[in-house]
Structure formats: C-alpha cells, structure tokens
C-alpha cells in the first residue's frame, strides 16, 4: 500500500510539474498575423517578417488568411481572440474594412498593428500602422522613369497599375502624375491589373506598346508588371530602348535589374513591415514606446547600387532568403 501511495504521489508530482511547464509556455505572448490573402508573395513575405521577429522576441505566432473577404477577416479576428492571442498584426482586406476590427480589438484591449494597408481615415484606436510611403515613392518613381525616358529621346510614359480602387494605387498614381507634370512627361495610358500575374502584364504591355509605339518608359506599380513589360520588350527587341521601373522587388526583378532590362526598382520592404509591426505590438505589450504611424520609404535601387551593403541590407527586408537570390 505504502509503495502504491508513493507511486501515486510521484505520478501526481510529475503531472503537476508538466502542467506548470505548460502553463509557463502558455504565459508567452502570442501574436496573430491576419493576412488579406496568402496567394500573393507580398503577404507571404510580410508573414515571414512577423514570424521571424516573433521568434526573435520569443513570442508564439499564429497565422490566418482572410481570402480577401471582410467578413472572413472579422471571423479571423474573433477566432484569434478566442484562441487567446495577445496582439494582432493585420494586413487588412481594405482600409474601409478596419473600423469593426478596431472596435472589437479595443473592447478586448488587444494591441493591433497594420502592415501594407493602413486603417480607414479618422481611425485612431490602433497601436501602429507600418506602411510604405506610396505617394513619395510615386513621385520618385515618376521622376526616375521620366528622366530615363528623356535620356531615350522621348517623354511619353505608359503605366501598368494596381487596381485603382486601392488606396496605395491612388497614392502611387497621384505621386506619379505630380512628377510627370513637374518634369514634363506625358502619361499616355494606364492599364490596371486584375490578377497580378506576369501573363496578364505581358499581354497588357504588348497592348500598351501597340497602342502607343512612341512611349519611352513603362511605370510599373507592382513587381509582375515589370517582369511582364520586360518580356514584351524582349519579344519586340526593345530592351534598352524603352525604360522600365517598378515598385516592390523580388528575385526575378532583381535579376532583370542586374541584366539591365529594368532600370530602377523601388524596394517595398514586405519583410521589414512584418518585422516592424511585430516590434510595435511587442512594445505595446511590454510598456515600451510605440510609433503610431511608420511609413517606410521605398528606396531606389539601380544596377549600379544593387551590390552596395546598404542595398543588400534593404533587400533582406524585402523578401526572405527562401524566395531567391539577393
């Protein structure tokens, strides 16, 4: 009997020890990353940034995708809260979809940081908004492609744009228009993407070149636009005769930049946004200082600067090593 009791006490003690360890693990903060969709590399790379930073800070990480649906996004938020997350990093489906999300998270006192797309205008109940400075980039890219076009003997520019119902696309466009107006370039046509695929961009670039054979520059708002434009130019033997610049950056466009097919890349720090947003919510959880609005610049990288240590460091904040070479 005594031996049996000893065994029971021993087993109970072991179980309690295990429970205590589990409880200690559960004490760790958990951050949820809610992506608008994960079929676009950009949001996968933001996810990588959040995950990497969470691991570095010793935070648990969970990930959900809203499949571009505001209602799924709201469901995800509720599920995340039910699962007991301490902080949320969100790439919202749209800015206008954010008010109910913010109200719900405020009720539960959960810090939230935005990545890529910011909250609706007028909203203040968020911890941080880490976005790209699209307007300034629009101006800079507009000026750059205009200068390149002029070097090639023209001033007409065609644009392969993101869907213009997006706030970031509008900012890029307004910035570009301002630069064209200042620099004396003519934006002859804008073609909006539906599917963000290279295939679509090739067809659109071909149509752009057919409708406006006198353009000297192609302004891309997204990575696949430049890849598609280069393919169209290659087919027509126009590489180097029409300049290409784009926002974003990927192993594909970096290679095209090195090859001289793309003249300028404006790097959007997808990974960096994930890192910075996670850092901001962690700061909020631990009572440290947070930065409310953090518009990250999109620096220009060219063939001449791509191998500089500064640009290589920037590239590591654009896409993860698993995506391809820097």
């Amino acid at each position, binding site marked *: 009997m005594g031996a049996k009791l000893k065994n029971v006490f021993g087993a109970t003690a072991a179980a309690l020890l295990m429970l205590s360890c589990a409880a200690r693990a559960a004490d760790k903060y958990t951050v949820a990353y809610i992506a608008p969709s*994960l*079929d*676009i*590399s950009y949001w*996968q790379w933001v996810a990588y940034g959040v995950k990497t930073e969470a691991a570095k800070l010793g935070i648990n990480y969970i990930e959900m995708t809203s499949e571009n649906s505001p209602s799924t996004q709201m469901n995800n938020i509720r599920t995340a809260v039910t699962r007991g997350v301490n902080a949320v990093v969100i790439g919202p489906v749209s800015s206008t979809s954010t008010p109910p999300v913010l109200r719900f998270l405020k009720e539960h006192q959960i810090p939230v940081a935005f990545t890529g797309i910011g909250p609706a205008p007028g909203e203040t109940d968020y911890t941080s908004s880490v976005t790209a400075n699209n307007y300034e980039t629009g101006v800079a890219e507009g000026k750059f492609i205009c200068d390149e076009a002029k070097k090639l003997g023209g001033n007409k520019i065609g644009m392969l744009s993101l*869907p213009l119902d997006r706030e970031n696309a509008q900012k890029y466009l307004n910035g570009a228009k301002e630069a064209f107006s200042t620099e004396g370039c003519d934006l002859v*046509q804008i*073609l*909006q*993407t*539906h*599917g*963000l*695929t*290279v*295939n*679509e961009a*090739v*067809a*659109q670039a*071909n*149509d*752009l070149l*057919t*409708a406006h*054979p006198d353009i000297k520059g192609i302004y891309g708002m997204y990575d*696949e636009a430049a*890849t*598609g434009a280069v*393919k169209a130019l290659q087919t*027509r033997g126009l590489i180097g005769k029409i300049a290409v610049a784009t926002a974003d950056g*990927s*192993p*594909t466009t970096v*290679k095209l930049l090195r090859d001289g097919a793309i003249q300028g890349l404006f790097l959007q720090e997808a990974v960096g946004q994930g890192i910075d947003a996670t850092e901001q919510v962690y700061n909020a959880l631990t009572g440290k200082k947070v930065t409310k609005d953090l518009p990250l610049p999109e620096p220009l990288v060219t063939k001449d600067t791509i191998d500089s240590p500064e640009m290589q460091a920037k590239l590591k904040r654009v896409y993860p090593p*698993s*995506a*391809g070479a820097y």
Partner: protein
Amino acid sequence: MSKRTHAVLTRPVDTVTRPRGTRFLVNYRTEAAILLAIVLIELGVGAMTPQALTRGNFADLAQAAAPLVIMSVGELLVVITGGIDLSVGSVFSLTGMVTALAMAYGLDGVSSTLCGLGVGAIFGIVNGVLVTFAGLAPFVVTLITYATAGSLAFIVTDGHSMPVPNQNYYLLNSGTLIPGVTNFLLYCVVITGTTEFVLRKVVAGRWLYAVGSSSEASRLLGIPVQKTRLSTYVVCSLLASFASVLSLSYISNAEATAGSSLMLQAIAAVVIGGASLFGGTGSAIGAALGALMITVIQNGVNLIGINSFWQGSVTGLVILIAVLIDRVGKARH
C-alpha cells in the same frame, strides 16, 4: 455492334439529309458567326486605334490566345459529354510550378515538361475515375481537384514564383518546328484541327456527342460510356498542362496564381463557341474561336483605353449574345 453501325447511329442528322454544298455552312454556322463577330470587333477597335490592325498586334493576339485556345479545346471535350472540369486553371498553375521546379532541380527541358504533363495526367485520371467509376458529380469532383491543385501550386515552392533556368526553353513556344510558323500557332492549329477531325469523323469522337446527349441510350447502344468520359477528363487535364508549359516557355516564369482566371475563361470560350453545358453539342473550332474572341475583347479594351475592369462586363455581354443567337438559331432550325 459493328463500327459501321456506330458511325451511322452517331452521324449528325445534317450530314445525312443535306446536300454537300450547304452542309459545311450549316455545320459551322455558329463558328462563322463568331468569326464574323471577331472581325467586326477588330475592325471597330481598328477604327478607333489603327495599330490594332497591324501585323504586330495580330501576332500579340495569337500569342496571348494560344494557351486559352488549347485549354478551351480540352474543356470542350468534357462539356460535350455533359460534364465540366473546374480544375483546369489550378492544373495550369500547378503544372507551371512543377515544370519550373524540375528545371531548378537540374532536369532538362524535355524531362521537366514531362513532369509537368504528368501533373495533368494524374489530375485527369483522378477526375475521370471519380466521375465515372465512383459516380460523383463532375462539378463536385473537379471543385475538389481545383482546390487541391491550387493549393499544391503554392505548397511545392512555398508560394514563391519560379524563374525558368533553362535558357533554351523558350523554343518550345517561340521556336519553329515548321519554317515560318511559330510553334505556339502550330500547336493551336494541330490541336484544334485534330480534335475537330476526331469529333466529326472518327467513331470514338462521335461517341462523345452520344454520351453527352444521353448516356443511358449510349450504354444501350454499346458505347463504352465510362471509358469515353474518363478519356475526356484525361485529355482535358493534359491539354491544360500543355497550355501551361507553353505559357511557361513564353513567360519564363512560373507563378502559383498563373491559371487562376483561366478556368472561367475556358468555360466561357466553350459556351461562346456554341457548346451547351448540358452536353451533346460543340465544336473544337468554335471553342478555339471563343477563346480568340475573349482575347480580342481584352486586347481591344486595352488598345482603346477603356478601364480594364470593363473587360468582364463586355465578355459577359458577348456570352449572353452568343447564347441567345445560338438559341434563336436552333429554335428556327
């Protein structure tokens, strides 16, 4: 039952009763109408943007239409038998990723292409077996494989797009097996022409119409209904895979979302081409022209400078008109 009996039983009524001169026009009236519509659209676009009527633009149109033409012909085969394949877009995406991945692992172009086509074969067999032998609804089966292939397209490379490392792979699309004819054009003509010939002139091709019209009557006539259906799903997926490797050869870049919009376009092309989603009708030439029409609309909208979000509405309107014209024509007939 002899082959001769099959041929007689499944021969279209038109070819039996009408004189040879009018037979062609009667058999291809839908296709002729689509062709006329394409010419009119192109002339209309050309009136607003003269560059639309240049040789360069026609070459662009042909290149842009090629993958959709091939996919649509494959989709048509399934539709004629009264089925539908929703997985073609995802199979397209997965094939591209697998082919590029195989090249990244050091396989040569031919082996990599075979790997890609293997994806089509596997999904075609899975679709066909589940529809024919398990008796599941085509919509449900291909919805499942659509989701699975679409998901695998992300999984195989963790969602990253894959550049094609093989410098000569472009020859598959842009080379010239016959001097003066670019390969993609050759493939389109051969695939469409062969399929049309088989559907019209070969007994096994006529079986597709018979199965689509009434699978029970076909079974009573001794037509191997299950094998016929199975083969259409395999050919459909294989053609989707072939369209994908062709596109990969042209673009030199594989993306997990590459085929996301193509499934609906392929079905739309088949419907525009005169096929009924209830089965029993349709032609390869019609499907190919339907695909060309969708591409012409996209091209025209871009050239004119209309907001490209209108493309879907214009395509929808064209499908509606095509279906209405077809229905009126059949009612009169």
